[in-house]
């Protein structure tokens, strides 16, 4: 009875049920595809043998060695130095390709050398023949391979435990012979699974990756065919979407064309306690951003000069794998901090009422917890790589999965922190939610926020004790699904809501954009997660699904770029009509930059490395870094700063606000990012890809190639852009965020709804309609 009373008072959705049903159906289909691929991954992953014996009967290594080797690999941060199955960092070698190439050379030499066709043929057969006995769990390898294993154990002992450093790792990084042997066993197993044919198939567990002529590893039929079909999917999908857009006018873009708005002067908008608390969030965000750029510069320096940092032996204290770990972790931390703060900042504007009791204190508690997680995890990574924490290394030290480097304990705390953030939002929104249909903006805002801790929690299932491909499945729930899909969804909801609150876009249009976003990303992005798993040990069906559906990801990126422009122009229209100046010029400019980088960084550079046949030769090269930087910083970084600019415009008094600083930061960040891509990452990536196809993947990932004269020149030429990025882009942002902290208390408290209204309508030529808040007239405070 009570439920029906509540339902009766809910404001109905302004969007038809069809949108909700289609979005739910497509989202469920996408998730079903993802679960199906997970099942296939568990069923078809490369086996870990109990024992690996030579044909002479000698036990070379065991399954326990392989698993222990994976632990050594992870806790020493080697995935942030080089890569395994193509996944990881870009300075060190890909250890799968490295072991495979070196062992194939050794076996070839044992069989008679490269000059002998018989030896070459015998070597290929030796590696391609799968002698794993599933019944006993015993893998038999040739005597030649067993001897090479011993030789390579020595090689990895010398390189990973080098006393003088100068390779990006700290001197004497791994010296324990037992650990070196276990590590070599892990590399040997990964190389075996990349060369030995799957039972009943003519390609290996990794779809023949890495390319290695010595063992007859070349692109499989699936790799080629699905690349072609992927291209067709892209072209067909883009054409179909634009045709439908033009024919049926899905979005029906038009704002409040006949109404004139007057934007409220930011200084006269009241701020609640929780909104004032976000000043500290944005300051923390900016500080973390500065630190991230500095450790990024340090990791870049290793590629330009391995020897020292302008005479300082940096590798003794801050080796490459540590600064790179911090660089990628901080990228998630500072962007997330901004998103959390923007959510808290927006709630009082949505509900137009005072904070619930202790809301501000809870916001400060969340910030404190976040700082503890950031500092704790970073210190843990530093100590963990140096052998601290004993058996608890994966809990408090370096868990070691790229982007999930933080210890499990910190990962759990971060998940709880995000759930706590959802509770804070819930407290603020509660009364408003009770009065709204679940298909309206307040609920979509809440659902999009709720999805963030839920999806991030999936990353907790990545266990160091699992086989690599299974850990990779769960890792990409965070790296792809959380970052590229659910953060994108939350972003769309936030931007749409901000524009509705500013009065420049109608709620119905904002709802259409959000549901269209859900449909498009569920159609491509969710199953498209598999484009990260082409070569990590999943079956060919996963490669096919990943290639085909990830091609569709580019379509919404293109489409949403167009859409973003329309959105922004609707705002511009009102800005030009309003008697009062539009206060969010620079927040919108950062959104313009998001549109640009979304298309170039995520769309063009992403698709450049997305086709299986391209990825086959380029994975782990500078082209991946090019996509990562232009998409992560270009899209999420610019968005995070755009949100900060939006809030800081209210937190900083008008006489202290500096358009000049905002402009300097905007241009410096964009120029620095463009310079980084155009001068270094893109040309370097193309050179590396060419070298990979022409000479070999192993060689293209070697330190000799990466540090050769031409590449070194390209790396050094990046320096001016990085300086502009840090000094002109990040530091002014930090100063502005500091001003926000300094002057956050100058606003008056909330007395009435009108105090939180961001615009007023001067003249209305059409019937009044519900805004996001559902209220047009200012009323007394409830």
């Amino acid at each position: 009875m009570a439920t029906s009373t509540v339902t009766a008072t809910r404001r109905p959705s302004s969007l038809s049920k069809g949108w909700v049903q289609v979005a739910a159906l497509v989202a469920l289909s996408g998730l079903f595809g993802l679960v199906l691929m997970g099942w296939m991954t568990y069923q078809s992953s490369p086996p870990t043998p109990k024992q690996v014996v030579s044909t002479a009967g000698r036990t070379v290594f065991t399954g326990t060695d392989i698993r222990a080797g994976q632990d050594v690999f992870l806790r020493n941060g080697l995935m942030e130095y080089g890569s395994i199955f193509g996944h990881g960092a870009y300075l060190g070698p890909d250890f799968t390709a490295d072991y495979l190439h070196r062992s194939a050379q050794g076996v070839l030499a044992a069989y008679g050398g490269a000059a002998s066709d018989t030896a070459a043929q015998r070597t290929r057969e030796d590696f391609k023949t799968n002698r794993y006995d599933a019944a006993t769990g015993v893998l038999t390898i040739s005597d030649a391979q067993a001897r090479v294993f011993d030789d390579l154990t020595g090689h990895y002992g010398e390189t990973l435990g080098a006393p003088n450093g100068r390779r990006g790792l700290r001197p004497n990084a791994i010296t324990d012979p037992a650990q070196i042997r276990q590590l070599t066993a892990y590399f040997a197993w990964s190389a075996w699974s990349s060369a030995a044919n799957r039972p009943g198939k003519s390609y290996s567990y990794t779809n023949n990756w890495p390319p290695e002529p010595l063992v007859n590893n070349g692109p499989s039929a699936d790799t080629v065919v699905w690349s072609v079909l992927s291209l067709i999917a892209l072209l067909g999908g883009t054409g179909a979407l634009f045709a439908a857009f033009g024919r049926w006018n899905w979005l029906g873009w038009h704002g409040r064309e006949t109404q004139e708005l007057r934007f409220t002067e930011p200084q006269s908008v009241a701020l609640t306690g929780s909104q004032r608390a976000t000043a500290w969030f944005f300051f923390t965000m900016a500080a973390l951003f500065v630190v991230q750029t500095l450790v990024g510069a340090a990791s870049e320096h290793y590629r330009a000069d391995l020897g020292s940092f302008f005479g300082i032996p940096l590798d003794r204290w801050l080796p490459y794998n540590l600064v790179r770990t911090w660089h990628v972790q901080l990228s998630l931390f500072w962007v997330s901090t901004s998103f959390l703060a923007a959510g808290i900042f927006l709630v009082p504007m949505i509900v137009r009422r005072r904070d619930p009791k202790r809301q501000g204190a809870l916001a400060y508690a969340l910030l404190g917890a976040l700082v503890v997680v950031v500092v704790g995890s970073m210190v843990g990574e530093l100590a963990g790589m140096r052998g601290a924490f004993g058996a608890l290394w994966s809990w408090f030290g370096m868990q070691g999965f790229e982007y999930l480097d933080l210890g499990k304990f910190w990962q759990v705390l971060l998940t709880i922190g995000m759930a706590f953030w959802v509770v804070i939002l819930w407290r603020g929104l509660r009364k408003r939610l009770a009065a709204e249909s679940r298909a309206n903006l307040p609920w979509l805002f809440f659902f999009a926020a709720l999805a963030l801790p839920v999806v991030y929690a999936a990353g907790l299932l990545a266990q160091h004790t699992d086989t690599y491909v299974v850990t990779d499945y769960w890792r990409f729930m965070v790296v792809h699904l959380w970052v590229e899909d659910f953060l994108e969804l939350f972003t769309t909801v936030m931007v749409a809501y901000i524009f509705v609150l500013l009065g420049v876009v109608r709620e119905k249009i904002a709802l259409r954009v959000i549901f269209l976003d859900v449909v498009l990303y569920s159609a491509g992005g969710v199953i498209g997660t598999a484009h990260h798993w082409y070569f990590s040990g999943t079956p060919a069906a996963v490669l096919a699904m990943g290639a085909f559906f990830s091609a569709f990801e580019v379509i919404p990126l293109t489409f949403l770029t167009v859409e973003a422009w329309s959105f922004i122009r609707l705002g511009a229209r009102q800005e030009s009509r309003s008697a009062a100046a539009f206060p969010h010029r620079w927040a919108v400019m950062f959104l313009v930059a998001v549109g640009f980088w979304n298309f170039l960084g995520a769309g063009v550079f992403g698709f450049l490395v997305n086709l299986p046949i391209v990825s086959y030769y380029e994975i782990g090269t500078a082209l991946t870094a090019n996509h990562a930087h232009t998409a992560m910083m270009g899209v999420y970084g610019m968005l995070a700063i755009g949100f900060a600019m939006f809030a800081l415009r209210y937190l900083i008094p008008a006489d202290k606000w500096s358009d000049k600083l905002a402009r300097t930061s905007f241009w410096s960040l964009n120029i620095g990012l463009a310079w980084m891509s155009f001068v270094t990452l893109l040309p370097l990536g193309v050179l590396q890809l060419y070298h990979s196809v022409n000479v070999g993947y192993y060689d293209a990932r070697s330190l000799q190639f990466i540090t050769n004269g031409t590449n070194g020149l390209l790396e050094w030429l990046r320096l001016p852009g990085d300086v502009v990025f840090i000094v002109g882009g990040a530091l002014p942002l930090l100063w502005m965020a500091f001003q926000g902290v300094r002057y956050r208390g100058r606003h008056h408290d909330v007395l009435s709804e009108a105090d939180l209204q961001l615009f007023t309508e001067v003249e209305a030529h059409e019937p009044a309609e519900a805004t996001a808040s559902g209220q047009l007239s200012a009323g007394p405070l409830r």
Partner: protein
Amino acid sequence: MDPIVFFVAAYTGVLLVAAAGLHRLGRIDTSPWRSRVLAGHRRAIGAVPWRERSSADWPHSEVPRLYTGIGAVAAAAAAVLPAGLLVAHHRLPEVAVLGPATVLALWFLGKLMATLRS
């Protein structure tokens, strides 16, 4: 001649074409409202929403600066890369390839900078 010389010269050309393209893009109205793709939509709503807009409206006014600005970064990169390579590759045939590429990029960069300043 080292193939890298040809690569950098070709890449310089690609960057200059991209810079010119961005500069040109900044001079046209990129709004989907102007696009013929949306002609059906404009008919359907019985209006031309932007008919009375001039291209000086913000953020239209920023579009030329944004695109030309990014284009200028590409042109600067196009100048720096062959110039940097000349330090290591300065035999006559190499100078004959890299020199004009550098000069061309500098000339175009100057042109874009003049546009930005105006």
